[in-house]
């Protein structure tokens, strides 16, 4: 059986792998019953219930991410465990607040990211023991004015996985890896295998840590700094009227709140402990065994944010017949989140912007007064998740049948109440309930033929998957509750007399989407003496999200592997030398359900500030989708055409393993908004036919650099990736598209910034650049649009030399996603000591510094009601050197400090030490030897110790999905923990 072979290899390799790890399941020699272990090994192999789903064998030393360090670091989400740990995966952790959403990109950006919904649509699928987890749809963004956060708890759904319960994680990215998974995994996949039940000696493990965060070193300032910064602009450019308009809080140096000590950080950066306590139990007999794991995790960041996670996991294996294995695994997780007290996030939730004339002041006393306003407010964020599956595997001679039923249900609840002090004397209440659910049934059948001499092997197989997704939310927000104590209901005074019965002004919302995917595949696999393997797989997928006539798609995947080492002499240095290639087409899913029904009518009578207004004269209004764009009659499958060519190289008995893969993914037939004349009333029309190419190299190196049984051991696990994306096609043979503040040009990257090029300042009228020579030989001064330039304006390059600076002169520049990224994990052991550290880097990308732009553009941001510019208490710190910027006239109608210019485009390369952990295993010391512990590790870990970056304004990782740095995220804090791991 081919699968068996893979399983066997996997098990063998994992045995090798685990024994090489300091924090694996322990040294077999130390087990008290070696014989029993050997006896049960066969059975445990049988139970290797989830295996790499690919059509080609993969060396696990290449495919598996190093988790040892991550399990000794206070991390809570899958994204964090995987950051810097796999070639081809870039993890974007844009906020240090525990439990916030994080995003992953497998092999580049396959679709331009205009919105959060786009971001969700390019996320890789995550499989836990073969069960696909439900994916976030971004459905609720339809009713949101701002997309900073999703409504509801908005907890990262992948923060439910406890790293101590995970055996290994593999990144699936090549066509061969993904062939059996199909459209679900068109953006790549993460294949998570939790620790398995095992028969054998009953084993306990206890894991724990406790630690603290370190305050970041920041330079706080008060209004005196602000005054020094702003007044020169007033002196240079302001009219008398404008001088009179100088903000009072900056001007009044007698105001102790603004001119006093800027010690807000003492309150804001208060460190509370992070901790973890987990307990695991493995046991059972040869025919039935189980694993049980329970854990409590507490994560924390500044501004009183935190996340508590309670997770229970239970797995069983049963072998009722010799040929039948039944496995099951259930995980129940509850999280609770304490969220930040940002003004911006609160205003986005309440949709209500109070008076912002005076910002929160920098003094601790006045900041405390502000925090006191939160007394009596509520912000409860809970999620309940259930992930589970049951599978039966039948092995009847050469025939193997497998059936798996899995369910992922994730619900989120949020209750918010803000009282009068926070809400300018009114009050706000909201309640959210929503869930995402994914149910999957999967059946596979395989049959293997072998020639008599076993030189030829043929396997045929087929599989069917039926998957249903459901996503729903109910949300109500209201204002003006009876008072700060009676938050919801009216109260009955007497008889039928109610007070405040109708005073709550509430808006209810509800929405749901359902979708279903039905997949069928058939595969034919031929192997000759394990030298050449060729696999062909055909898929037939049907998805409910497309027009009825176009919903089925037939796609092939071909893969082959050439094991050269089989032809070489066994004595040579090459233990592995293989060439691999795979090519295939994968349909891509669209979660947005509007495309399936063609041109349509929906509620569209709201406007930017009131997007949810749905009626006129109290009647529900229907119209065509003017704001969302014209929907075409039919939409078919977008698809991803993937090519992967790679080598696997192992020398000296795989002491050094190198995997190099070249990939070229062409994502085609994607939907993009194409402009329509505004006179049609429609913003855009949603047309299919955009194509994006992502190409690059993924390299993975694992090396036992030093290997001394009693001396120093050093294992290096390094990965390096390059990523180049190009827009290759637009519908209607268009060469470019503009969409809000982004531009797409064929042949250019899709993650580029679109900016004016800064070319100095106009200090005197003579500096105003002149336009092209006209027919009569004269030249006119360059204009900004139709506006004449004046002293104090910025000079932007007139790229097309038409004498007018406008959007035509903006250029695409830089990348918002790293071009080169990777990680270096080092594991050093010396006797009982263990040192592990991970370096993580991203290079070649840039960020657009909105923080600096908004501070320089203080005239326009000061009185703006746009909550993007609300001043938090964190405003009171020095984040840039204003002497390095030209002194433009901030009152100019050209908006010289606009964000979309390369003045604010900065290099965002970084190299970070993600964690450094030092441990000592006491189990082998004389002191504890008698206790028969297989592991007694005590360790200390420091995380996020340093960041090397040319960016001066903060942490370049904290940019949003379009590469904009707002400086509003909580830091990815430096932390120190002490922990212990016991196995017995």
């Amino acid at each position, binding site marked *: 059986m081919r699968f068996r072979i893979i399983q066997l290899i996997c098990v063998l390799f994992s045995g090798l792998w685990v024994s090489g790890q300091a924090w694996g399941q322990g040294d077999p020699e130390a087990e008290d019953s070696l014989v029993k272990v050997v006896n049960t090994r066969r059975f445990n192999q049988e139970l290797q219930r989830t295996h790499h789903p690919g059509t080609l064998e993969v060396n696990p030393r290449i495919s598996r991410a190093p988790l040892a360090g991550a399990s000794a670091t206070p991390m809570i989400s899958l994204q964090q465990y995987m950051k810097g740990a796999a070639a081809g995966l870039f993890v974007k952790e844009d906020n240090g607040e525990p439990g916030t959403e994080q995003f992953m990109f497998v092999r580049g950006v396959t679709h331009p990211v205009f919105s959060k919904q786009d971001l969700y649509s390019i996320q890789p699928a995550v499989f836990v023991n073969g069960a696909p987890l439900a994916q976030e749809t971004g459905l609720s963004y339809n009713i949101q004015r701002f997309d900073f956060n999703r409504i509801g708890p908005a907890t990262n759904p992948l923060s439910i996985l406890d790293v101590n319960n995970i055996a290994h994680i593999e990144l699936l990215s090549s066509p061969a890896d993904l062939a059996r998974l199909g459209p679900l995994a068109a953006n790549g996949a993460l294949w998570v295998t939790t620790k398995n039940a095992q028969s054998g000696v009953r084993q306990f493990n206890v894991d724990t840590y406790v630690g603290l965060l370190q305050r970041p070193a920041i330079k706080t300032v008060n209004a005196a700094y602000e005054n020094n910064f702003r007044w020169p602009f007033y002196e240079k450019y302001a009219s008398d009227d404008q001088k009179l308009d100088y903000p009072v809080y900056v001007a009044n140096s007698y105001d102790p709140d603004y001119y006093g000590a800027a010690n807000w950080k003492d309150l804001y950066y208060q460190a509370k402990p992070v901790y973890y306590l987990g307990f695991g139990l493995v046991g059972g007999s040869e025919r039935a065994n189980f694993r049980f794991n329970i854990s409590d995790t507490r994560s924390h960041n500044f501004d009183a944010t935190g996340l508590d996670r309670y997770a229970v996991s239970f797995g069983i294996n049963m072998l009722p017949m010799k040929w039948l294995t039944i496995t099951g695994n259930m995980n129940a997780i509850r999280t609770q989140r304490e969220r930040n007290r940002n003004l911006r996030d609160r205003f986005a939730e309440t949709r209500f912007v109070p008076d912002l004339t005076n910002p929160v002041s920098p003094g601790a006393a006045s900041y405390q007064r502000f925090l006191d306003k939160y007394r009596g407010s509520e912000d409860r964020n809970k999620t309940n998740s259930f992930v589970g599956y049951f599978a039966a595997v039948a092995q009847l001679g050469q025939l193997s049948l497998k059936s798996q039923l899995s369910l992922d249900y994730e619900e989120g609840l949020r209750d918010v109440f803000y009282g009068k002090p926070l809400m300018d004397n009114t009050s706000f209440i909201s309640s959210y309930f929503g869930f995402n659910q994914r149910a999957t049934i999967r059946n596979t059948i395989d049959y293997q033929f072998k020639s008599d001499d076993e030189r030829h092997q043929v396997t045929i197989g087929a599989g069917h998957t039926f998957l249903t997704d459901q996503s729903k939310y109910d949300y109500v927000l209201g*204002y003006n509750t009876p008072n700060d104590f009676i938050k919801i209901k009216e109260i009955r005074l007497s008889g039928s007399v109610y007070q405040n019965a109708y005073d709550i002004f509430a808006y209810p919302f509800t929405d749901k989407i359902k979708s279903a995917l039905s997949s069928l595949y058939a595969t034919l696999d031929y192997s000759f003496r394990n030298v050449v393997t060729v696999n062909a797989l055909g898929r037939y997928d049907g998805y409910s999200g497309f027009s009825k006539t176009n919903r089925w798609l037939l796609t092939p995947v071909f893969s082959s592997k050439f094991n050269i080492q089989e032809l070489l002499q066994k004595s040579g240095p090459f233990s592995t030398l293989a060439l691999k290639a795979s090519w295939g087409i994968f349909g891509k899913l669209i979660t947005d359900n509007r495309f399936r029904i063609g041109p349509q*009518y929906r509620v569209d009578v709201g406007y930017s500030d009131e997007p949810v*207004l749905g*009626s006129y004269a109290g009647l529900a209004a229907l*119209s065509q989708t003017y704001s969302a764009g014209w929907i075409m009659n039919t939409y078919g499958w977008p698809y991803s055409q993937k090519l992967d060519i790679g080598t696997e190289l192992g020398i000296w008995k795989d002491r050094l393993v190198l995997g190099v893969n070249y990939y070229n993914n062409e994502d085609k037939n994607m939907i993009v908004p194409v402009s329509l004349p505004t*006179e049609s009333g429609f913003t855009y029309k949603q047309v299919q036919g955009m194509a994006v190419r992502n190409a690059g190299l993924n390299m993975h190196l694992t090396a036992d650099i030093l290997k001394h049984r009693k001396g120093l051991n050093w294992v290096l696990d390094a990965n390096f990736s390059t990523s180049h994306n190009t827009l290759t096609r637009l519908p209607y043979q268009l060469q470019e598209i503009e969409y809000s503040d982004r531009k797409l040009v064929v042949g250019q990257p899709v993650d580029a910034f679109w900016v004016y090029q800064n070319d100095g300042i106009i200090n005197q009228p003579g500096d105003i650049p002149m336009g092209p020579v006209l027919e009569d030989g004269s030249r006119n001064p360059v204009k900004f*649009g139709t506006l004449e330039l004046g002293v104090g304006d910025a000079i932007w390059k007139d790229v097309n030399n038409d004498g007018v600076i*406008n959007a035509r002169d903006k250029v695409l520049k830089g990348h918002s996603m790293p071009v080169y990224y990777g990680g270096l994990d080092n594991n050093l052991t010396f006797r009982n000591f263990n040192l592990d550290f991970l370096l993580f880097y991203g290079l070649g990308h840039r960020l657009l510094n909105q923080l600096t732009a908004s501070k320089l553009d203080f005239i326009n941001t000061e009185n703006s009601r746009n909550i993007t510019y609300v001043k938090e208490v964190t405003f009171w710190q020095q984040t840039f050197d204003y002497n390095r910027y030209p002194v433009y006239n901030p009152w100019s*109608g050209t908006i010289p400090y606009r964000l979309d210019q390369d003045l604010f485009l900065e290099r965002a390369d970084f190299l970070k030490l993600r964690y450094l952990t030092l441990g000592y295993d006491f189990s082998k010391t004389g002191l504890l030897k008698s206790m028969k512990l297989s592991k007694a590790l005590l360790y200390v870990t420091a995380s996020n110790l340093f960041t090397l970056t040319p960016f001066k304004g903060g942490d370049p990782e904290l940019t949003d999905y379009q590469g904009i740095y707002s400086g509003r995220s909580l830091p990815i804090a430096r932390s120190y923990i002490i922990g212990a791991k016991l196995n017995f």
Partner: protein
Amino acid sequence: MGFYLLVLTACNKKLDIESSAASPRTAMWQTYDDAKAGLVGIYGLTRAALAENNAHWMYGELRKGDFTSATKGGYLDAIIGNDLNKSYPEILQLTNWRRFYAAIDGCNTFIENAEKCKADLRYSALNCKVDIAQAHLLRAFNYFYISRIWGDVPLIVNATKDGNTLQVARTPQKQVLSFCVSEIRNYMDSLPTEFGGSDKSKLGFNGNYYGENWNVWGNAFWGYYQCVALLAEIYAWMGDYQNAYNYSYKFAVELGKTRTKFIETSEVTSLLAGTRSVFYSNGIPNNGSYCYQVLAFPYRMANRESGPSGVGHLESLTLANPYVARNRPDLYITRDTISQMFYSVNDARNPYQFEFKNYGTVYFTNYYNAIPVFSKFRNMEYTNSPFTIFGSCIPIARFEGIYLIRAEAQYVLGNYNDAWAVLNEIRKRRGLNPWLVSGSKPEDMRQLLVDIFLERRRELVGEGNRWYDQVRFNKIMRTDPAFNELIDRGGIYWPVAQEVMDKNPLIEQNPYWK
């Protein structure tokens, strides 16, 4: 394999999942409810176009108007100063006419499809006729509105078909306006004088309209007299004062059928300004039998049809303490300007209340502050809390304004005595003494015109008319050279957004803004 084929066909059915948030085009225009939702949709789209960025006031009130921006610099200052080429994001959005064309396309779609709903027997032929006439009227209104803003605008009378990129050049304003006029005149007889009440037209369209009576609707749906009022406005803008006179006169003499009336002197403090003024919700104060909003886009407050941003209501720009928790409003009228507007202490709207020998709250609150709060519009949903839910409509026209068009028309037509009489009719109702300057030469009568427009300025302040009034005034007067230049060079129109021209190369920038 057969098993799998079976599974496959079963699955295909399982893939038929309905969308809950939208209904396909093929399912629309079949029932009474589709017609209702579609009709409401075109009103809603028009209101959205006027509400986005408080556009109605940005276009109609601010330019060279009475309001001052509390912040120096910024888009409000730029609009007030007529610097419409500054690149503030709000101005860039205001120069884009897409939302109006969404409403127009909605009207076109309704006109082309509403007949199909008659398949539903609940949708009577008469109801359908009335609804289609409303769509014609609303389309004409939209064209009138945008041609006042941009001058020549593309005239499109067919619905967008299958997302085709049809490009149309700008149609001369004259042609657009005469289209508006002929449309309204063609369809006004297909409209009842009121909805959900006793129709006084020949149609006899009585009884509840879409399930409710007139006391619920007010003038939320536009009928025969909305046509009359709109025709008076359009003809005045076109300079066809004979017709402007005819229709404004018609409105006044048939006032009994219009279910509107003047706000009387005693009602000024409660109805013209106040927390439940004539601008609140459906415009029928105190559940009475008069709707004072002749042309308006109301927000129906009984259904909580208003949001916490306040945008789409003038209050969001003009209110501050003590009404909402805001130190100063975005817009206010300086005391200097106030004293130019109100010179008579007898004026019921004058902040100085003669009766009490003190400054009271009518149009203004905190008159003696550096920034008096313009509180003519203060329809707070909660009068006891500073919560920013406002109930004011987007006002287009009231009877007082229509009445004054008659005075303006009579002035141009040379019937000065009637012009005086009409003006004094209004003055009387605001506590002002009637006055008259005798003479028959136009030069002598200039003061009459000044006074007519001064009365408009006082009465209609904050209702989004000031700019258009200035244009009409200066077109008649032609004494202000700077303004004459604006009129002659097309500076009275707004520039067109670059985005509009990029998406349709046939559109050219207004010459003044080139």
